């Protein structure tokens, strides 16, 4: 369950960063986001990627947890990129849900 939480959290982080990548902005937003939104999403994105280390740490402690975290970043990133090519808006919106679920999973595990 920890791994699921890590996965969702990293997915949410990538989704936030993906939404503000210049090339993707027209695919995701009806009108370009304000500078504040961009900064917010960027901060949230990197923060979520960093936070996704915590469930790994809780499950496996530092050495193994960090290895798992690195591999999970790849898994979550790829899990975002390919669906994004088909349904950009939904994949990014799923990131918001994923962030909530990540916390929820951690609480109820």
């Amino acid at each position, binding site marked *: 369950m920890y791994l699921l939480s890590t996965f969702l959290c990293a997915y949410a982080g990538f989704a936030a960063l*993906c939404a503000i990548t210049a090339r993707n902005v027209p695919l995701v937003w009806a009108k370009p986001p304000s500078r504040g939104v961009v900064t917010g999403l960027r901060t949230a994105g990197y923060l979520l990627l960093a936070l996704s280390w915590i469930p790994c740490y809780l499950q496996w402690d530092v050495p193994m947890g960090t290895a798992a975290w690195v591999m999970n970043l790849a898994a979550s990133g790829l899990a975002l990129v390919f669906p994004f090519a088909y349904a950009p808006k939904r994949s990014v919106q799923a990131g918001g849900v994923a962030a909530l679920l990540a916390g929820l999973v951690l609480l109820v595990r």
Partner: protein
Amino acid sequence: MEKSLTQRMDWLHTWFGLVLGWLAFALFLTGTIAVFWFEIQHWAQPELHGAKMLSPEATVQYSVDYLQKVAPDSRRWTVTLPDLERHPLLVLSWLDENNAQQFARLVPDGSGRKVTTVTNGGRFFVDFHWTFNREIQDLSGRMFQWTYMLSGFVGLAFLICMITGLVVHKKIFRNFFTFRRQAKSVQTRWLDAHNVLGVISWPFQFMIVFTGLAFYCYLYIPTGMQMAGHYPSQRPAAAVGGGGPLMLWGRYGIDAVGRVARNVVAPGNPAPNVPIVSLFAQAQAEMGVLSSFTVNNPGRDNATVRFGGTFARPDAITFTANSMTFDGATGRVISPAGNTVNAVQKVTNVFGGLHFGFFGGTAMRVLYFLCGAAGTIMIACGLVMFTAKRRAKAKSAGARRFYAFVDRMNVASVGGAMFACASYLWAIRLLPQSLSDPTGGFSGGVYASIRAVPLDLAQRSDLELYTFWLAWGVAALHAMVRAPHKAWAEQLAAVAALCIGLPVIGYLVPNCDLGSMIAAGDWKMVAVDLSGLSIGLALACASWKVSGKRVDVRVGKAVAPVLSPAE
């Protein structure tokens, strides 16, 4: 004209990537499968499927009772305990009256049933992954083998490609999430897929290739080890009563059958021994999960009992097996647990531990598998891209011929390797057990190495390997004679059919069918079958996409099939 750094790196990336990519694909594919090699080993031995396993303590007691019955006066018993999570096989071995090695492979359910299937199982993928399946002498044998040198070279080339790939990419962050599946140019689509897979899983790929190379660096650059042999350091005190030579990373340390053991201690006088189960409990409390124990002179006053942990420790990134030795008559600890490893071994522990991925349980291995699969697909995309990029721009007939050849080699390498692996799994399942060599399987040295023997003398494990290479040969031939775009579709479809068929053919062999395995709760076995099924479905989808019924044919504009040369 002076070339820029990027152009130079591009050249290196392209040509190293192409020529060594053909081999690197097979290495990545087998390495990815090898993540689950214990599970595949279990899958390959029908006798073990669905058996109700004893607890570790009961298994120890059962082993001791069994050995007491078959070899009460033996000088040495060695028990390799089942890995209840991954591959629950119990191997008992003992020295007979001539001090020659004997053994029995048992189902650890207390029934005394023997495991008669001798198979290369999942171990084959491990060995192929670094030796292309050729026998290798042990480290002191120092037999030069070009096969592991070749795999090392491929690894090194891959490392170079990873770094040059970053240099030539340039827009890593701008294109981090970019996969333009509807891009006008076919090349862009393959490029995006290659880039996205490569960039996002880059840290993992670097880690896995670097640790693999670093772990075996003494094989690739042997001079240091050879010179070290001239200046022997003080040897650590020999472990009391070691069994046969432990395989470097195997769980099973069983010596060759019939080999006369050395270092056998003369028996003492008969004396009551401390029950081994109680020593086992003590050792387990100190060292965690144990994988083996050896009893020297059981039932004598000079009995010793040595418990060994496993290289494949689930709870730490390490590659050193712990051990602990007791006096069998008094229960006194002769040598306590605790690894005394030097700095080099500690570094090796990190490399080996990270590369082999024994730690962290199934969830961790799923991550290894997914990241490995991403690398495998990345290589395949890169290979396809080579011709997708150049074919249309070919200026001369010679260039066109070369690209056609590359197309064919791509099919032979990507399709062929997958076809060979899938066929090998079919061979494991369908070859009759009666072909097994009863004395084979756990001899010293590398287990899954191909032997040239006449067909009538070939045993099951030989035939499995022949199937693998024969299937690859057939696939390569097919790739050479068939138009590449057709060959792609057909080979992917064939691999898909074989993979989807894996659960189906289980119904032809006793104790391998999915239904009763689910009922028996043997999830290790079921997981292999279902993974085969899902990989098969994914490949069927890929086959359909490249078959010409592509999703993305632009209206009113004929588009050449993605993977064919412009004919």
